[in-house]
């Protein structure tokens, strides 16, 4: 067997290191975006030559995207944002399918700004996979190697090895329409990886799957991405997908980066309402007045345990909120607001109450508690949060 790609399942990925000094960069899976910064800075104009350095600017009549994106080899970066934020445009710009208005794009030290998509070392897994319907799974995967000059037999041998890695050997001869969603996703991943890309792009890789399949495919995808030794960028509007699959999140809203960091960091310190909503936190922005009190722009004051100055964010989970029908007397909580129930909805095995009034917030309570309080839209309530349950951090 002379085929170098016939790796057994679980074996290291077939791509060899592209250059001898990549060992400085490939350990970046832990989330440090610039592992080789100190070493490369003296010899190269860019902080790191390896990995992705992009400043993507795309201007259209009704839309402006302007984001900076860096990623080290081996790193998985998720672009997270609401629909219409510009995630897919960013992905298309990286792939060369949408031209950059200005900005630059460097991958492993090579400038790709004006390179056509077919000449970029970039693989794409499209949202609905776009497997060629007239070709079998095997020929779909062999398409890339064929375009890169492999003979028909060689391309098919490589494709068979990739399908084997994905556990799809018995589906090699099947046309895409006869594959399940999860299988199609793996064929699409194999097809993208078969060209040995230095940058793998995944557009909403799990959006087309039903909830049950999603769990399986997500964990498989995580394994394959962990094995992938070049840069992977995935686009999603699902925070769970982003947090499970990615080492680092870049949150995009209205074509701009609003926050960047590890999943844990972003979950703990959201900086916009969108992220706070995604991770299920109440988020407020205000000024730390003196010591432990934060004055919000709208008027109310929140007491925290952190000692900060200047502009700060305050966050607390809905579960930290306690509700009373009558004003509590002698309560230790200094954070007490008079509110009104705006809406109620089932949230897991809890009831989530949306409150308006002195402070708009979400509160979680058990169904029993909700019944005892006789909560209904329009009902007046008092909401308290212990200072120790809040979390303040600089804005």
């Amino acid at each position, binding site marked *: 067997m002379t085929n170098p790609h016939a790796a057994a399942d679980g074996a290291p990925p077939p791509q060899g290191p592209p250059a001898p000094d990549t060992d400085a960069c490939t350990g970046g899976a832990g989330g440090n975006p610039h592992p080789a910064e100190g070493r490369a800075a003296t010899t190269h104009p860019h902080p790191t030559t390896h990995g992705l350095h992009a400043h993507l600017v795309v201007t259209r009549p009704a839309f402006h995207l302007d984001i900076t994106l860096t990623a080290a080899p081996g790193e998985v970066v998720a672009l997270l944002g609401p629909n219409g934020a510009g995630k897919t445009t960013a992905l298309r710009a990286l792939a060369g*399918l949408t031209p950059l208005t200005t900005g630059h794009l460097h991958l492993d030290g090579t400038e790709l700004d004006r390179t056509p*998509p*077919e000449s970029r070392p970039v693989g*794409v897994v499209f949202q609905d996979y*776009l497997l060629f319907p007239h070709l079998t799974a095997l020929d779909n995967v062999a*398409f*890339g190697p064929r*375009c890169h000059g492999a003979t028909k037999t060689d391309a098919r041998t490589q494709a068979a090895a990739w399908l084997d890695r994905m556990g799809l050997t018995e589906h090699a001869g099947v046309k895409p329409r006869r594959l399940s969603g999860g299988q199609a996703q793996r064929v699409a991943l194999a097809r*993208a990886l078969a060209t040995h890309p230095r940058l793998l792009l995944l557009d909403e890789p799990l959006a087309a799957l039903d909830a049950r399949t999603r769990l399986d495919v997500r964990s498989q995808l995580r394994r394959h991405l962990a094995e992938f030794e070049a840069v992977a960028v995935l686009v999603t509007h699902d925070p769970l997908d982003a947090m499970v699959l990615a080492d680092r999140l870049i949150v995009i809203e209205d074509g701009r980066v609003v926050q960047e960091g590890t999943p844990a960091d972003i979950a703990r310190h959201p900086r916009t309402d969108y992220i706070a909503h995604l991770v299920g936190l109440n988020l407020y922005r205000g000024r730390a007045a003196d010591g432990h009190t934060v004055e919000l722009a709208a008027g109310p004051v929140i007491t925290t345990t952190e000692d900060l100055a200047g502009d700060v964010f305050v966050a607390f989970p809905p579960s930290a909120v306690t509700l009373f029908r009558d004003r509590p007397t002698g309560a230790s909580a200094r954070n007490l607001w008079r509110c009104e129930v705006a809406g109620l909805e089932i949230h897991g095995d809890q009831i989530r109450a949306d409150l308006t009034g002195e402070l708009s917030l979400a509160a979680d309570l058990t169904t029993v508690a909700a019944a005892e309080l006789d909560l209904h839209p329009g009902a007046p309530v008092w909401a308290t949060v212990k200072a120790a349950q809040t979390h303040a951090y600089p804005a």
Partner: protein
Amino acid sequence: MTKADGSGAVAAPRRGGPRRRRVRPAVPLPLLLPGAVALVFLLLPLVALLVRAPWSSLPSLLTSTEVWQALQLSLICATAATAVSLVLGVPLAWLLARTEFPGRGFVRALVTLPLVLPPVVGGVALLLALGRNGVVGQWLDAWFGITLPFTTAGVVVAESFVAMPFLVISVEGTLRAADPRYEEAATTLGASRFTAFRRVTLPLIAPGIAAGAVLAWARALGEFGATITFAGNFPGRTQTMPLAVYLALQNDPDAAIALSLVLLTVSIAVLGALRDRWMTAS
């Protein structure tokens, strides 16, 4: 009130019975009558052709060398015109469907012009362009010694001129309906735009191309006006079936009917080939 309710409850199932049997409401007469007349009008000539066909002498009529020559020439020229339309028309359809250039809508209108142009006018225009003294024809004659009018090649040119728009419009429609992102997916896998077209788009739109080709072929086979104007009517060289039918009608009506039957058979075969596309449209 209660009495009315009771009778209604009894009557309801009785009324539901006939309503279920008569699925559609009555067809209005002002639509039914003209529609029936139209149907008869379209079918009557074909029936007449079958009624008056000289069935007993048909074998001898159809095996005469003249008929055979005309049929052979028709098939060859129509097939060649279809091939020309495919080779030139599919790329044109792709350009119209997949690229942006100024005046694209105008070009598209020009492409469809031969569809509505009287074929005789097309023949005259071809003579002025490619005739021996034509705008381009004089140079073809002077430099390469090529003369197209009144040759078999001229028949192919005339038929291509009339048939190609059918193919272009059909293929362009299929291309517009096909998802262009498959081509994008192919380019991200390293395929040039042409490779993407050849290996992905072409197989995907193959049914549309086939339908367009059949349509163009049928149109080329029946082409009369442009052919007789541009290529003349020389038996064995430029006399195709429709020309032979027209000529035979003057001296030998039986032969004309026999030739017409052959063309009718071919037309029905074409309809059969396209039935999935058209007859299931309802």
